[in-house]
């Protein structure tokens, strides 16, 4: 069997299925799974874990749509639909930036991937924090938006800490996922 026959054909149906499942996962882990932060009595959500996981495994454009649509859906479902347009753009761009920097994970050693993933995490964090600072300044003013900045940085840290073991686990458990890179 040659390489062409081994590769998954990334048909429109497969693309739609990938985006749907990852969008649902991003939305679910954003609004349903939360980690309390004792000092501030706030919460971190794990949506960024799925966004970074989508960027590292499935590529920039999958992360763009899954991250943007998933977080917007989560905002609507949890009663904060006023933030949905901002989340759509900011988290979408976060996924896109992280995916471009991470590159394709197929046929690449894990040791080289870790450095790329670190770069991708920095790019994603920068885009997400800057986006929410700008969007938040527009909605609630610069002062209130600045207060959210440490929380956003923590959230990205949690996202990367979760995404790396998740990506490695999926690589082992389901290698064809690496062929669904977009």
């Amino acid at each position, binding site marked *: 069997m040659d390489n062409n026959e081994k590769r*998954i054909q990334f*048909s*429109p*149906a*497969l693309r*739609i*299925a*990938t*985006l*749907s*499942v990852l*969008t*649902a*996962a991003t*939305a*679910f*882990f954003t*609004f*349903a*799974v939360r*980690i309390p*932060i004792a000092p501030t009595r706030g919460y*971190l959500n*794990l949506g960024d*874990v799925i966004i970074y*996981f989508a960027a590292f495994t499935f590529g920039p454009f999958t992360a763009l*749509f899954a991250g943007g*649509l*998933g977080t917007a*859906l989560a905002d*609507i*479902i*949890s*009663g*904060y*639909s*006023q933030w*949905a347009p901002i989340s759509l753009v900011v988290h979408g761009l976060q996924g896109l930036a992280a995916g471009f920097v991470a590159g394709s994970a197929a046929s690449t050693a894990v040791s080289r991937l870790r450095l790329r993933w670190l770069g991708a995490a920095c790019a994603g964090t920068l885009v997400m924090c800057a986006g929410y600072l700008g969007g938040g300044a*527009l*909605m*609630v*003013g*610069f*002062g*209130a938006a600045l*207060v959210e900045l440490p929380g956003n940085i*923590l959230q990205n*840290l*949690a996202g990367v*800490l*979760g995404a790396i*073991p*998740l990506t490695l*686990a*999926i690589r082992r*458990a*389901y290698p*064809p*996922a690496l062929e*669904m890179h977009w």
Partner: protein
Amino acid sequence: MVSGFFRSGNSALHRIDPRAKLFVLLAFLVVFFLPLPLPRLIACFCAAALLGGLCLGLRDLLLPLRLIFPLLLLVMILTPPFHRQGVVLLAPWGFPLYTSAGLETALRLVLRFSGISLVFFLYMRSTEPEQILLSLRWFGLSYSLALVLSLALTYIPWLTRLYGNVRDAHNLRLAGVEQEIRSLGFIKRTRAKIPAMTSVMIQAVKGIPVLAMALETRGIGRKNVRSSFYELKSGRAFLTDLLASSLLIAGLALMVVLFP
């Protein structure tokens, strides 16, 4: 699914065509972002509140405002120090912290954010998710993207059940350790969630080709034009709703321009 989403009813807002409602939502958003004098902004907010109160009731009207109340307090406290022009109102140790301009800016932001939250809530509360998707389709959203959203909404309850089962199975293995996990820092608590998350995501990712096959048997991916089982009617009712929305938007525009 949760409080921010649709609740069925028979109010005027529920009966209006979702496309017409989307126009009104956009008009309110534009108005709230305009640099209007404070009285006009208050008038626009009151207009939205009146619409919501009459159609959905006081309880539903207060719900979005209760959700954002802590953030509104934060805005009132943190905005004035960044705008220190005008008459000084509070100057601890001689440093002008709160001024009239700062308070006005804070009020403006509070009204803007409250107004935007309110109109979004009214739209989502009175429009079924399928109607929202169909109206976005009518406005030009691609079939594929609408299908992605529709499938994602279907998958979320499945993921909820799967995560619940996986988390319970993990908790059985970790019986007695949950209390210790709760006392750890947030990094360790995040890492404690990863095993359950990994199990859920493996199941989800393995299901992607199965979903793709199901979509292909329904003709997704072929070049023929897709038809829709459900469509929004564009008859007399839609035109009436569009006219009513246009009158509302015109009234809003007049209020913005003419109100002293």
